[in-house]
């Protein structure tokens, strides 16, 4: 099976202190450290596990700049067979639809049976997967948390629905799935693994290679524009439960149950 995973490089939320820039229209990006968007990493792991089970190739693609090559190397160190960087001046500032347009052009150059994306980018809006599927006229399922390959170019997948319940579906190949975290346990990649793939060439594609009309993508064509950023105001502090140990436990159990955490 030929599997394509669309991945993205984002500021690592666990390793950054997010602050606004002085203009207040973006976050301060000078000292950020980046990593692969976490759900995308689960998608790559899932693709690798499927390929290991039934055979096939895994390609990881990202739309971005030179710096984004870093995450492709990391995913290749995990075991992805190919990494592809889609980069063009004309692409910068694209909105979700723009990214989907670019990815669609790339998908059509290949022959992919299964396209995976992360459920959402940590700095994004969970839009690209669905739009890409629609543009390709492929079936789409979101929040996928298990995949089983069936006979006859079909998959059996489960989707996470409210309350953590699972909904089982059958879906035809080729299709696009957005992968929920927790579907697997992604393998660890250290510096050694990345160094081992450091010299593997990563092909790049631009607007001309993909035959994308530059006017249909990029900042100018974006119909969704970021106008502001703000940090939520701090709410009041944590509620401290008081009383004897038993009372505290009873109240805590009551609170958790009231929020649907216990059944």
């Amino acid at each position: 099976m030929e599997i394509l995973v669309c991945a993205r490089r984002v500021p690592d939320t666990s390793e950054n202190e997010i602050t606004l820039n002085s203009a207040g229209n973006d976050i301060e990006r000078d000292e950020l450290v980046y990593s692969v968007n976490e759900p995308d990493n689960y998608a790559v792991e899932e693709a690798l596990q499927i390929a290991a089970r039934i055979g096939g190739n895994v390609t990881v693609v990202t739309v971005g700049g030179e710096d984004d090559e870093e995450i492709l190397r990391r995913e290749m160190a995990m075991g992805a067979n190919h990494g592809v960087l889609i980069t063009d001046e004309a692409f910068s500032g694209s909105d979700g639809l723009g990214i989907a347009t670019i990815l669609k052009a790339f998908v059509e150059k290949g022959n992919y049976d299964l396209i995976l994306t992360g459920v959402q980018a940590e700095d994004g809006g969970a839009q690209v997967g669905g739009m890409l599927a629609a543009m390709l006229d492929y079936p789409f399922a979101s929040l996928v948390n298990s995949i089983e390959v069936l006979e006859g170019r079909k998959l059996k997948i489960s989707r996470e629905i409210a309350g953590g319940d699972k909904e089982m579906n059958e879906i035809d190949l080729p299709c696009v799935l957005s992968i929920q975290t927790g579907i697997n346990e992604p393998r660890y990649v250290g510096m050694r693994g990345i160094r081992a793939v450091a010299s593997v060439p990563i092909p790049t594609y631009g607007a001309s290679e993909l035959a994308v009309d530059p006017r249909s993508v990029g900042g100018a064509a974006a119909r969704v524009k970021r106008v502001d950023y703000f940090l939520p105001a701090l709410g009041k502090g944590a509620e401290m439960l008081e009383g004897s140990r038993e009372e505290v436990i009873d109240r805590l159990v009551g609170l958790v149950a009231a929020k649907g955490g216990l059944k």
Partner: protein
Amino acid sequence: MVGIELAAQVTPWLASGRTLFLIIHLLGITSFAYIVARRLVPLLRAEPDLRFDQPLARLGKVLKFGLAQWKHPRYRTAGIIHIFIFAGFICLVLRAFYVLIVGVSENFVMPGLSGEAGHIYNLITDYAATVVFLCMVIAIVRRLVFKPARYAVPEKFGKAHIADAIFLLALIAILMVADSLFAAARAAGQVQQGQSVELLAAWSLPWMLQSLLVSSSLSALKDFYFGAYLLHEVTFYFLLCYRPFGIQFHVETSLFNLYFAKLGRGTLKPVKYGVSDEHLDQVKSFGVKTFEDFTWKHMLDFYSCADCGRCSDNCPANAVGRPLSPRFITIKARDYAFQHYPMFGKPDNHKALIGGIYSEDEIWSCTTCGACEEECPLLVEYIDKVVDLRRGMIDDGNVPQSLQKPLKALESRGNPYGKMEKKRADWVNANDFRQTCQVKTLVGKSKADTLYFVDSVTSYDDRIQSIGRATAKILDHVGEDFGILGTAEKDSGHEVRRFGEETLFMALRDHNAEAIKATGVKRIVTADPHTYNALKHDYKDMPPVEHISQVIASEVKSGKIKFNAVENGNNVYTYHDPCYLGRHNQVYDDPRDVLDAIPGLKRVEMSRSRDRSFCCGGGGLMLFYEPKEEQRMGVKRVQMAAAAGANVIVTACPFCMVNIEDAIKVAGMEGKMTAIDLAELAEQQIARGKPVVKAEQTAEIVAGR
């Protein structure tokens, strides 16, 4: 000796005794040689291990831990029994050879043991055989009646080993009886024939047997004599050939295991012997993934283990119900070797160990505290094996999710918490601290004699920063010209390395080493034993490194540090030895000397202290790992402190502080027990300016008035 024929001259069945015994000799020796050769097969396929250096130091180990049985008295009863058995065996070595040879060459006399020397030697061996026999009886009774808990085999690790152990003990007992009977029958025969009698040692086993036999007929004595010899012969060779199939192989292997034992404390083996750091990238696979990835010495460890259970009896992971028992790390590997390298047929090798004989959690459960290695009488190594197995898992990407984030953060931010590099030195800016103590950052032209290497937990953890500030204040008080690396410092990588991430460790080490060299400092001080161990053993060409407890102890001696008396004379203090200060670096006395220099401080020892200290739960990345356990190690440790009658635990390691303070809460002992770092306590007690407490008062407090 005419009447009673020598064993060699007897013609029992078809062949003469001489022929029979010659056949047994040849059969026994050939079988043993074949068995040992087969046992060596995996060692020849193993990874290299460079242990042929420092012959004198190695010989010293053999003398101390072998001949002098150094570790044995740590377990009083079993240890003393073993010392007797060992001493008995040593005495009996020459006799064993003599008895074997005499079966084929009846007039053989051991060189140097003719005449008077021979008589004396015979008396010694009479008693030696008796002692060994009695020890076997005691050992069997212990296992059958008293059943020490450490011999038990938990269900998950398979069947009990008791039958095998008793079988082996019984074989040795039979050997001793046969040897004694052989001597007794001969002496009884000599008595009956009125010949000059070889004197037997009074009340020894041969002496008692002789008293029983002396009235038997000469022909019966002949049969006894021959039978005893045959029994001795058969038992001896059976035992010799059976030993390589179980725990008694250590009789043969221990000499080699001790000679090739690890020499450096606190160190780790390289990923691959003979490959420099620069060439490591070319090594295809890191760590131990299959049995053949162990080094030959580590395989020798597996053969040498005597299954005494002392390692697991001291292992904190085992004590709190984690899925790790060091004893079974060895036993399972030995069983694997026996099964996959059979006596006949082809070896069946290269099976994955993780998921095969070991579980992932078993290998991640180790805190590398070293309690197992400290206890092992045969110097079997565990930490290097655990780290090698982890290197293998890291290389395969097989790492718990809970550890992946901190490892990634160490890679991108130089600390496991993912905190900003620029905030690394923020702890020096606490308002009240800044006013009393200025800490230099050694960048560019800012120079100092001493570097205080702070490390990640002390830099970023709100609670632990207090240890950093106390350390700085102490250095300041003694007039030390010191500074820190500030934002140029990254995690020392001590735990990174022990968790098997060698490549990341090397990056951290190279970064820090360069930063340290750029400062031109003459020495390094740290308050973190893990950092201390890393800089001392994992880094190369560093200036001398000292732990803050050593600095305080020496400045107390020099008189630069004087302490005020403790305010609350009712408090009882106990010192908890951090693994990487105590066991791994042998700093036991300095922290205690510091405590004892504080007037009025009452100090008690926990039953597990010094080299038997009980790990608090582990440092660095171990704080992120989510172990499967019934209880926290820290809780057990806090209970040990309470049992010793203490209400203040003094430690000298930031991670011990984190774990013990948590454990006090978990154990519900808040208000009854507190924890304080040695640096914090010392800084708090330092007498600044003119002495606050006069000598007389101090004397009163010390006297408890």
